[in-house]
C-alpha cells in the first residue's frame, strides 16, 4: 500500500535524523580527544624524512623536551648557538643545555661544517658519555630539565632520555627546477612525492606542479649545477659544503609531519609561563576549581532560599509571577551581557577591579536560575505527608523546611548544583571582562586570574599554540564529562 510505504520511509527518515545527533557528538568528541592527545603539525623544511642511521653518533633529548627528531640544519644551529631555546623547535620554553662528547668534535665539525672554535662556545658543554653516566647528580638534573640535548658516541645507551633521529637528506636541484614559470613556482613536496622522485617514477617536473622540464637524476653536484632539470638526493652535510663553496645549486622544500603526543601529564602538572604561551596549566586548573567553588558557595544559598520561598510561601499573585518571570528572563540573558554587567558593577562601580571576586559574583548571578529551577522541582516533590507529620508535631514552617523538606530534596538540589558547576566550568564570555587574565595561582579574592575555558579562548585569540588549545580543551571536556556522569549517578540513585 502506498500509505504504508510512505509511513515506513517517513519513520526511517525520522530515525536517521535523530541518529545524526549521535554522529555529530561522536565526531566532535572523538576529534577533540584525538587532537587533545596527538598533535599533528605540518612544517616545511629543507630535508626530507629520510633518517640517517649511519651516523657515528647518537643524539639524546630529555623526555619532556618533545624532541624526538631533528633535521640537519636545526642541529647545526643548535650547536652554533643560533637556536638557544626549544621554543621554536618543540614549543618548550627552556634554554637548551647542550652536552657533546669530546671525541666527536672533529667529526661534528666536518659534518656540520662548523669551525672547531664554534664548539668552544659558552653554550656547548664538553663531557664524555661515560663521565656523564657516572655523574649521577648531573645526569639526574639533565633528565629533569626540559631542554637537555646530549650528543654522544654510538652505543653509549644513555637511559632515561629520548633517542633523537637525525634527518639529513636534501633534494638538491638545478636552479631551473625552482624557477618561475607562468607566475607559478614548484611548491613544497610531500614525502610520497619525494619517494616517487627518488625511485624514478616521475618523468617530468610538471607532474609535481613544477616547470615543464624532464627529470634527470644525476650523481654529482656539478651535474646538478649544470644540467637543466637535474636533481640529486644528497646528504645535507655535503650540500652545505657545496653551498658554502658557492655552487649554483638549490634545494626543494619538503613537508614534514610532526606527530607528537599532545596532552601529557607534564602539561597538567606544570605551571604556566610567559602569560600562557608556554608551559603547563596547573595554575589555571587550580584557578578554575577555585572559581567554581566560590561561585557555588555564593549562588547555592540564594537559589535554594528562593526556591523554598516559591514552593512554600508564594501565593498566586502579581509578586509571584514577577519572581517567576524574573527567573526565566535571567536564564535567557546571554553570557556576554552578564560580562558587561559584571564589568560595570563589580569591576568599575564597586571598585573590585579585574579580579577573581568580580568573576565569581558575575557567574553566580548567571547560574542562579539553574540551581533555583532544579531545587524548586525537588522541593515541590517532597511528599506532603512528611510535611504534615512535622507540622502536626508542632514544628514551625521554617523548622520543617530545614529539618524535613531540604534533607528530602537534597538529591534534586545537588543535581542542580552539579549542573550549575558544569555551566560555570565552561564559561568564557562572562569572565573575559571581569576576572582578569593572569596565569599565576590565584592568591586572593582581588587578584587577577584566568580560568580554563577563558585560557583556551585567549590562546586562540592571541595566536598561541593550537596544540595547547586542544590539550586544554581536552582537560575541560574531561571535567565536563565527569560532572555529567556524576549528575547521572546521583539521579539514578534518586529514582531508586
Amino acid at each position: 500500500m502506498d500509505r504504508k510505504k510512505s509511513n515506513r520511509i517517513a519513520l526511517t527518515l525520522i530515525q536517521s535524523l535523530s541518529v545524526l545527533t549521535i554522529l555529530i557528538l561522536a565526531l566532535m568528541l572523538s576529534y577533540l580527544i584525538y587532537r587533545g592527545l596527538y598533535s599533528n603539525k605540518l612544517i616545511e623544511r629543507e630535508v626530507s624524512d629520510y633518517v640517517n642511521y649511519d651516523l657515528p653518533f647518537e643524539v639524546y633529548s630529555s623526555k619532556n623536551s618533545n624532541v624526538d627528531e631533528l633535521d640537519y640544519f636545526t642541529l647545526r644551529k643548535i650547536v652554533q648557538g643560533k637556536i638557544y631555546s626549544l621554543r621554536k623547535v618543540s614549543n618548550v620554553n627552556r634554554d637548551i643545555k647542550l652536552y657533546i662528547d669530546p671525541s666527536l668534535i672533529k667529526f661534528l665539525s666536518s659534518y656540520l661544517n662548523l669551525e672547531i672554535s664554534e664548539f668552544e662556545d659558552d653554550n656547548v658543554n664538553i663531557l664524555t658519555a661515560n663521565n656523564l653516566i657516572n655523574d649521577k647528580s648531573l645526569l639526574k638534573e639533565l633528565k629533569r630539565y626540559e631542554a637537555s640535548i646530549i650528543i654522544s658516541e654510538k652505543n653509549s645507551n644513555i637511559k632515561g632520555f629520548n633517542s633523537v633521529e637525525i634527518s639529513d637528506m636534501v633534494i638538491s636541484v638545478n636552479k631551473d627546477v625552482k624557477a618561475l614559470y607562468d607566475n607559478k613556482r614548484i611548491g613544497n613536496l610531500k614525502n610520497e612525492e619525494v619517494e616517487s622522485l627518488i625511485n624514478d617514477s616521475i618523468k617530468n617536473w610538471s607532474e609535481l606542479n613544477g616547470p615543464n622540464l624532464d627529470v634527470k637524476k644525476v650523481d654529482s653536484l656539478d651535474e646538478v649545477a649544470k644540467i637543466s632539470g637535474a636533481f640529486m638526493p644528497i646528504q645535507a652535510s655535503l650540500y652545505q659544503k657545496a653551498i658554502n663553496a658557492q655552487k649554483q645549486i638549490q634545494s626543494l622544500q619538503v613537508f614534514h609531519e610532526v606527530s607528537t603526543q599532545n596532552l601529557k601529564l607534564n602539561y597538567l602538572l606544570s605551571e604556566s609561563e610567559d602569560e600562557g604561551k608556554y608551559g603547563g596549566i596547573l595554575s589555571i586548573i587550580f584557578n578554575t576549581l577555585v572559581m567554581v567553588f566560590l561561585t557555588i558557595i555564593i549562588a547555592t544559598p540564594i537559589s535554594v532560599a528562593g526556591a523554598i520561598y516559591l514552593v512554600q510561601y508564594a501565593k498566586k499573585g502579581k509578586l509571584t509571577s514577577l519572581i517567576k518571570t524574573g527567573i526565566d528572563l535571567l536564564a535567557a540573558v546571554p553570557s556576554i551581557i552578564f560580562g558587561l554587567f559584571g564589568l560595570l558593577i563589580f569591576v568599575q562601580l564597586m571598585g573590585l577591579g579585574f579580579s577573581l571576586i568580580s568573576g565569581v559574583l558575575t557567574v553566580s548571578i548567571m547560574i542562579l536560575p539553574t540551581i533555583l529551577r532544579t531545587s524548586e522541582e525537588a522541593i515541590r516533590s517532597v511528599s506532603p505527608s512528611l510535611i504534615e507529620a512535622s507540622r502536626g508535631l508542632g514544628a514551625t514552617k521554617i523548622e520543617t523546611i530545614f529539618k524535613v523538606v531540604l534533607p528530602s530534596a537534597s538529591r534534586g538540589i545537588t543535581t542542580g548544583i552539579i549542573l550549575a558547576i558544569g555551566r560555570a566550568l565552561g564559561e568564557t564570555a562572562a569572565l573575559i571582562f571581569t576576572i582578569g587574565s593572569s596565569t599565576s595561582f590565584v592568591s586572593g579574592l582581588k587578584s587577577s586570574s584566568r580560568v580554563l575555558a577563558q585560557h583556551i579562548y585567549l590562546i586562540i585569540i592571541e595566536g598561541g599554540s593550537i596544540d595547547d588549545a586542544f590539550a586544554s580543551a581536552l582537560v575541560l571536556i574531561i571535567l565536563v564529562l565527569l560532572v555529567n556522569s556524576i549528575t547521572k549517578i546521583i539521579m539514578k540513585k534518586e529514582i531508586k
Partner: protein
Amino acid sequence: MKKNTNNKRRRVIEQGSKVVLLLCALVSITAVIAITLYIVNQGVPFFSEVSFTEFMFSLDWSPSADIPKYGIASFILASFEVVLIAIILAIPVGLSTAIFLSEFAKGKLSKIVRNTIELLAGIPSIIYGLFGIAIVVPAVRNTFGGNGYSLLSASIILAIMILPTIINISEVSIRTVPDALRHASIAMGATKWQTIYKVVVPAAVKGIVTSIILALGRAIGETTAVLLVGGNAAVFAKYPTDMGRTLTMNIITDMSYAEGTHLSALFATAMLLFIFILLLNFIVVYISNKSKVGAGE
C-alpha cells in the same frame, strides 16, 4: 516560663526567615532590572552623539577613522543571517529527534540519543568554537572556496548548539499531547506517520514554536563560538560564505580597547541585543499564557 520564650523565639525566627527567603527570591528579578538599567544607562548617552537611524541602518562601521562612523547594520544583518540559517539547519534534525524520542520511546537507541543531547547541551561554547575551527571551517573551505571562516561556519556550529533547546522543549510538548488523540487517529486506520504529522505535531505546535523562539534567543546571544569561526570582518557580508561579524562579535572584539563614543556604541549594541532577547522571551511568555487560557472558539 522558659517554654514560652523558646516558642516566642521560634516564632520570631519564623517571621524573619520568611523575609529572608523572599529577598532571595527577589534577587533574580532585581538582577534583571539592574542589568537592564545599567546597560541602558551606558548605552543611551550614545544616541545623543549619533542618530538612531545612522546607528541602525548604516553599513559603515569605522570607529577609528578620522570621522568615526558607528553604523551596525552589517552586524544586525549578520546576526540575523547566522541565526536564520542555524535555525533552518537545526529544525529538521531537532524536530525529528523530538518526535523520535517521544513517539518511539523504547529501547537502547532512544536512551543513547537522550544522553547525546544532554552531553551536547553541556559542552562549553568555546569548545564548539574550537571544533568549528578544526573541522567546520576546512569543510566549508573545501566545498565553497574562500578561507572557510564565514557566517556559514558560524551557522553550522550554532545549529548544533541550539539542537538541545529545540529538542527538549519540543519533546515535552509532543509528549503532552493526550494519547486519546493518537488512539482516535489510529482507530480510523491512519498510519503512525499520518497520526504524527496530521494530529500530534499540529497539537504540539505551540510548544514547538516556543522552542524555536528560545533557540533563536540563545543563538543570537552566542559569542565565543561564532567569534572563532565567523571571520570577524567588520564589513557587510554579502553571502553566507563571506566572513562577517555579528553583534556579539562586535562587542567582544572592540570592548578591550574602546573608549569614549566607541565604548558607548558598544554598550548601545549590547542594549539593542538585550532588549531584543527580552522581547523574544516576553513573546514566549505570552504564547504560553495564551494556550493556558484554553482553545475555545
